[in-house]
């Protein structure tokens, strides 16, 4: 009897350990986390507009009034310039690292002249960019990535049907391009 209780207690301890191990390890091997899904959309450094139905990567517009576009990028070679402009009631962007942690987010109210103009780069690239300080980037927001890989999600708000083409054009014209540090 004592051995049976011993076995049950041992089993319970094992269950707790297994629970903790699975919870901690899960983010590293699900294969369907947000970064992996965005990379499955296609080539990196390009915004892909999402449909209201899940695409083959499993991503979709969950909100009927918010149109989404996502771009996976890698800044290990060169910084990436996120750009977009258009007349919308509301737009917002979130920059995330490959673990889906938020690095930076903003909306149109905090943008200069209502335009999206962000450079994401590593710490070393940012130091060189600031030293060069080209005039073309005087109003650009610099975002430092903790890891070189990440993704950006751009949302365009279309509260009424007539505004959907504007939102789609805004997302279609959005840029997610590699840029040279020394122009």
């Amino acid at each position, binding site marked *: 009897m004592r051995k049976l209780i011993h076995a*049950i207690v041992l089993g319970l301890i094992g*269950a707790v350990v297994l629970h903790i191990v699975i919870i901690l390890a899960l983010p590293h091997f699900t294969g369907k986390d947000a970064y992996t899904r965005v990379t499955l959309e296609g080539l990196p450094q390009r915004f892909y507009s999402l449909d209201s139905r899940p695409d083959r990567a499993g991503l979709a517009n969950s909100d009927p009034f918010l149109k989404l576009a996502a771009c996976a990028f890698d800044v290990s070679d060169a910084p990436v310039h996120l750009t977009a402009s258009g007349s919308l009631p*509301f737009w917002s962007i979130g920059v995330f690292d490959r673990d889906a942690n938020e690095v930076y987010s903003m909306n149109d109210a905090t943008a200069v002249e209502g335009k999206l103009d962000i450079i994401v780069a590593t710490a070393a690239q940012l130091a060189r960019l600031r030293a060069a300080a080209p005039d073309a980037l005087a109003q650009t927001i610099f975002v430092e990535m903790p890891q070189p890989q990440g993704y950006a999600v751009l949302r365009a708000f279309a*509260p009424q049907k007539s505004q959907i083409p504007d939102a789609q054009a805004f997302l279609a014209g959005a840029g997610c391009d590699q840029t040279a540090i020394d122009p």
Partner: protein
Amino acid sequence: MFRVPLLVAIALAIAFGLGIQSTLMALNATVGFGEIEIDGWRAFPQAQTAEADPYARAHRAKAGRLLLGSAEGLTFIATSDRAGRKLTTDCRYKLSGTVPMARYWTLSASRPDGAPLSGSSGPSLAGLPTALNSVVTLKNRDASLEIAIGSDAEPGNWLAIPPGPAGSASPVGNQEMMLSLTLLDTPVAGNSGLVKLSMPHIDMVGCGHA
């Protein structure tokens, strides 16, 4: 003679059975800790940040959704009415009250797992207001609002959901429902607790075609 292998088998069965079951339950039941709850509406303002707890990270990696950043907005979800009953597509509800400060908001209904509601019978919902936002919604003079939620058209603000089964005697087609209220550009996301927030109340009006 077989006592030792039996004890080992019991220990292993308990460890793997309970360990895996409890993990699945924990991941399905919640998005993690750090939830804020206001009048039955729940939100996870930290879920997309590096400060998220291990449960939130595991859930985030498993669900693979594109979450809103803190400067973008915050989504509140509700799965039960003010009396604590689960929301279903078979019943009619009234949403009343004020929405917290935000530049815009959107309201939509879905299944509790986020999948769209499917109409089992009756006409399609194409062209009906299956989602509302702050631009198209009528407000009272004191900025409060009332929204009727149901499968039958109502005057004023109406959120259309798929009709329940005809006669509603059988539970087929009667789906559980989740309401999502997304606040865009809201100070609630970084709320330090200094502001008293109030969310609209969800009251059940009736069930079936009475």
